[in-house]
């Protein structure tokens, strides 16, 4: 049940109960008051009349004529005359009558003398009192007193209805008050429900709507200056703030949602890309595996080939050389000088071929072997190689200048091969110089392309030997490429190819410049 109706019923109930209680209490009180007042009034009237009669009788008695009928009659007539027009209220009746059996009965004063005879009998017998008697259809209250000396009974009666007039008036007033109170209560209720309950109800509805997310519901307005008005205004303000905050939130949520969608899209794109990368990686790995297997197979084949070259190709050469020598030894006497020379040529050729085979094997070994990068002291390496060269040809006078503390990072074994080849070449091509000079060190030159960082200055080997025609500089590093005739400077044309292969394996560069008769400069950077 709504609060509004609860208040309604409560107010009505209280009003009715209070009204009825007040009415009942009022009716009884008024009735009792009316009775006692009337009784007192009637008593005083009756007593006053009896006192008058007594004083008249006293006067007669003192005069000594109390037993003289004419005087008594005269006195009685005076009193009766005095009270002829006596009125009491609207319905009050004064009766003076003689007791039955008395000679001095004054029946003319008895008006409407139709009281119950039974009631009259009782009155005459008791002498004085107050009682209720029926008078025809109406009830009457009677106060009476007797005056025995004259055998008179004085009786004053009043219609009971007249006594109840006061009560009824009170009742109607109370009813009026009740009605007015009821109306006031209703008005108060209407005001209360309108001023407090209704706004509160509106507030509760609005709060319910808000809690359900209905921000469009019209907010309750109030101009009242009471607490409910304050509450309503505060609530409205709060709702507006909430609504604004909610709109803000919705806006932000929309932005977030957009961002989220975009992120989602990006993530899925990213994932797609990752999957593709993964796929590509798988393929790449597969290809690497395949390529590795191919390379491994090729390498194994190459190794088998190299093995068989080192073993099988040399055997026939040994035979050629050995039997040529046997021929020279055993049958040399039967050959002329030219024949001997031919055999020597056969031997030289076979030995040269053996050298070529060895060089080729070395070249392939360099390509195949594992590479270990570590810091390498090139100055020390150069010194060691120079020492070997000097020991091999101690008769030669060559000035070898080695810059100290030249450090590099690479495979020590391979870099030694590089130094052996470059310094060996320099040694070889300065063999015809009077003042041979070989230098090793670090230059200011930088390699071209990606390797050309300031920290990567090239190393150099310089000599003042035979040099070369710069036009052929790019042919220097090819396998079996030679710029000099074998009779001038021996060699197989594999040394620089080996150097280049080693430098390339290190990811470096090697190049050269020079001039015929002046010398050559070889540069390499790792």
């Amino acid at each position, binding site marked *: 049940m709504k609060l509004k109706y609860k208040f309604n019923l409560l107010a009505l109930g209280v009003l009715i109960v209070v009204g009825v209680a007040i009415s009942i209490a009022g009716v009884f009180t008024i009735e009792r008051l009316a009775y006692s007042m009337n009784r007192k009034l009637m008593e005083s009237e009756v007593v006053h009349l009896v006192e008058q009669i007594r004083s008249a009788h006293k006067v007669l008695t003192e005069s000594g004529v109390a037993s003289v009928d004419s005087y008594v009659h005269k006195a009685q007539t005076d009193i009766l005359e005095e009270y002829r027009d006596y009125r009491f209220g609207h319905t009050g009746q004064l009766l003076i009558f003689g007791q039955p059996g008395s000679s001095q009965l004054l029946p003319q004063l008895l008006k409407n003398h139709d009281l119950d005879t039974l009631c009259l009998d009782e009155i005459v017998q008791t002498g004085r009192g107050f009682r209720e008697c029926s008078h025809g259809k109406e009830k009457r209250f009677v106060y009476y007193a007797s005056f025995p000396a004259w055998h008179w009974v004085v009786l004053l009666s009043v219609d009971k209805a007249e006594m109840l007039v006061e009560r009824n008036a009170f009742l109607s007033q109370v009813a009026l008050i009740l009605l007015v109170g009821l109306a006031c209560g209703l008005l108060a209720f209407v005001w209360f429900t309108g001023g407090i309950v209704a706004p509160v109800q509106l507030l509760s509805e609005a709060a319910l709507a808000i809690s359900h997310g209905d921000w469009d519901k019209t907010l309750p307005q109030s101009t009242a200056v009471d607490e409910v008005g304050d509450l309503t205004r505060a609530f409205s303000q709060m709702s507006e703030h909430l609504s604004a905050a909610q709109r803000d939130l919705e806006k932000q949520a929309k932005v977030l949602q957009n961002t989220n969608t975009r992120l989602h899209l990006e993530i899925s794109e990213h994932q797609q890309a990752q999957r593709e990368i993964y796929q590509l990686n798988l393929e790449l790995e597969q290809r690497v595996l395949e390529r590795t297997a191919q390379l491994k197979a090729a390498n194994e084949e190459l190794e088998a080939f190299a*093995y068989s070259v080192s073993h099988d190709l040399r055997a026939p050469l040994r*035979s050629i*050389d050995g039997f040529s020598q046997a021929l020279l030894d055993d049958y040399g006497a039967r050959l002329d000088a030219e024949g001997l020379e031919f055999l020597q040529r056969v*031997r030289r050729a076979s*030995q040269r071929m053996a050298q070529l085979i060895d060089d080729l094997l070395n070249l392939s070994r360099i390509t195949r072997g594992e590479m270990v990068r570590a810091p390498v002291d090139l100055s020390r390496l150069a010194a060691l190689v120079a020492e070997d060269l000097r020991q091999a040809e101690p008769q030669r006078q060559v000035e070898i200048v080695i810059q100290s503390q030249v450090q590099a990072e690479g495979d020590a074994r391979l870099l030694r091969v590089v130094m052996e080849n470059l310094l060996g070449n320099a040694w070889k091509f300065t063999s015809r110089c009077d003042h041979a000079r070989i230098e090793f060190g670090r230059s200011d030159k930088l390699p071209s392309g990606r390797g050309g960082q300031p920290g990567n200055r090239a190393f150099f080997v310089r000599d003042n030997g035979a040099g070369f025609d710069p036009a052929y500089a790019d042919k220097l590093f090819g396998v079996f490429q030679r710029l000099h005739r074998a009779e001038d400077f021996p060699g197989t044309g594999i040394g620089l190819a080996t150097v280049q292969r080693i430098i390339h394996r290190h990811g470096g560069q090697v190049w050269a410049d020079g001039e015929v008769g002046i010398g050559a400069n070889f540069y390499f950077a790792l």
Partner: protein
Amino acid sequence: MNTEKNILLVEDNPDDEALTLRAFRKNKIANPVVVARDGVEALDYLFGRGQHADREHWELPAVVLLDLKLPKVDGLEVLERLRLDRRTRLLPVVVLTSSREERDLAEAYRLGANSYIRKPVDFNCFLDTVGQLGNYWLKLNEQSYQ
């Protein structure tokens, strides 16, 4: 001095065989040279079985010159079998081959070769090599006969 004892030459190439024998002769090494032309023949000779089963005065050679690349059973396997047998465990074996492959070298020494010599192409160098070889293994070197 092992001047009377045999030399076992394990060599499948007839040219090399002829040149090696010539080198011995040139170096005046007079020991009898037994030639085995494959791994099986070498093992048969050394363990006295097969065609050598009825050999009288069975005796181990002073030194075995062993080529690596051989038909049937190759040089390294011959070496391995010799070293597994109590009788030939200490027999001097010189690997004489064309190969200079590192893995052959390493494997030969791992299996117990006493020496590893690469045959040079230059016959004069070869002569020198064989001379030194004979001098060392037949004259200088003291052998255990346990």
